């Protein structure tokens, strides 16, 4: 059973900063060696294979989706949401814990204007590049070398956001 230790003020500040505009932060008191992270790589490998095998990383499939000429991508995303929804319900109902015995916590997302303006900008870019951030990694891995440029531009975009964050409407 995991113990619940209050984080120090410095740790708390670091956590709050990491939580800014992020949907995937969870603090754990457990300290694991680096190779514990390989379980995420393992799932990532399966994920990358799925991305290629179902052609989710294909620029063509994204065009089809936004032109409403194929059900494929709607089927993928819709099924993923339904499976995710049922899983979260089961986890909440059974009060399931992690394999290390920690309580599972899903942070609430606060609304801000970024979910309008930022999301719109991402949507515009998604239709051009045919990729959200996940498929960017997969496109590079699948051998589309020039996507490295797209990827570096995406990192630059994130960086510029970080620089101007305080001056943008939220």
């Amino acid at each position, binding site marked *: 059973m995991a113990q619940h230790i209050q984080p120090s003020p410095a740790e708390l500040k670091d956590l709050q900063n990491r939580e800014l505009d992020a949907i*995937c932060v969870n603090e754990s008191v457990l300290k694991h060696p680096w190779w514990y992270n390989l379980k995420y790589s393992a799932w990532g490998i399966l994920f990358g294979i799925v991305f290629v095998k179902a052609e989710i990383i294909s620029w063509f499939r994204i065009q089809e989706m936004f032109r409403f000429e194929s059900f494929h991508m709607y089927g993928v995303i819709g099924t993923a*949401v339904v499976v*995710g929804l049922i899983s979260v319900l089961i986890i909440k109902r059974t009060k399931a814990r992690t394999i290390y015995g920690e309580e599972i916590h899903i942070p609430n997302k606060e609304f801000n204007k970024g979910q309008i303006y930022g999301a719109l900008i991402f949507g515009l870019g998604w239709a051009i590049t045919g990729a959200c951030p996940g498929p960017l990694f997969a496109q590079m891995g699948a051998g589309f070398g020039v996507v490295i440029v797209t990827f570096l531009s995406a990192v630059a975009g994130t960086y510029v956001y970080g620089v101007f964050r305080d001056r943008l409407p939220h």
Partner: protein
Amino acid sequence: MLEAIKQPWPWYVAGALIGLTVPYLLLVGNKTFGISSSLRHLCAACMPANITFFKYDWKKEAWNLFFVGGIALGAFIGATLLANPGPVQLAEPTAAYLAEKGITDTSALMPPEIFSWSNLFTLRGLIFFVIGGFMVGFGTRYAGGCTSGHAIMGLSSLQWPSLVATIMFMLGGIAMTWLILPHLLTL
């Protein structure tokens, strides 16, 4: 069995596996699914400068980088050992529209008419790689998540801000595809 794996996978198999990422990450490490954050962690790791947004202990989020590294490796395996045998089977109207714009080669997942090195220093390259990529990186962080963080994780946990974001993703994509892209493709 191996033959079935080598064919392109149907949407329900892919959707189910992607959906299972949500409980997997929660159960093995209390992580909520999200990919775009990896771009931020890279900024924090490589060039935090003195920017508050990047001044945090990125090593505590290293799992996310291991995850995206896995995605790249998995895609490599998918594109080599398990490669789809034929060209992308595009919907008829999409194929006709793209052909009209000079994009006819569907032998790979990405059209070589756009995504090749020879386009890097052209207007097409600037738009499709540099500006497009920038909008993906800037927009996802401003929105606080991408398709995985908002559309899948956010909707799975019934968060209405994620529904707003997902609708805006779609509106942006539809506006680009119908209003702007037809002009960009003829440049």
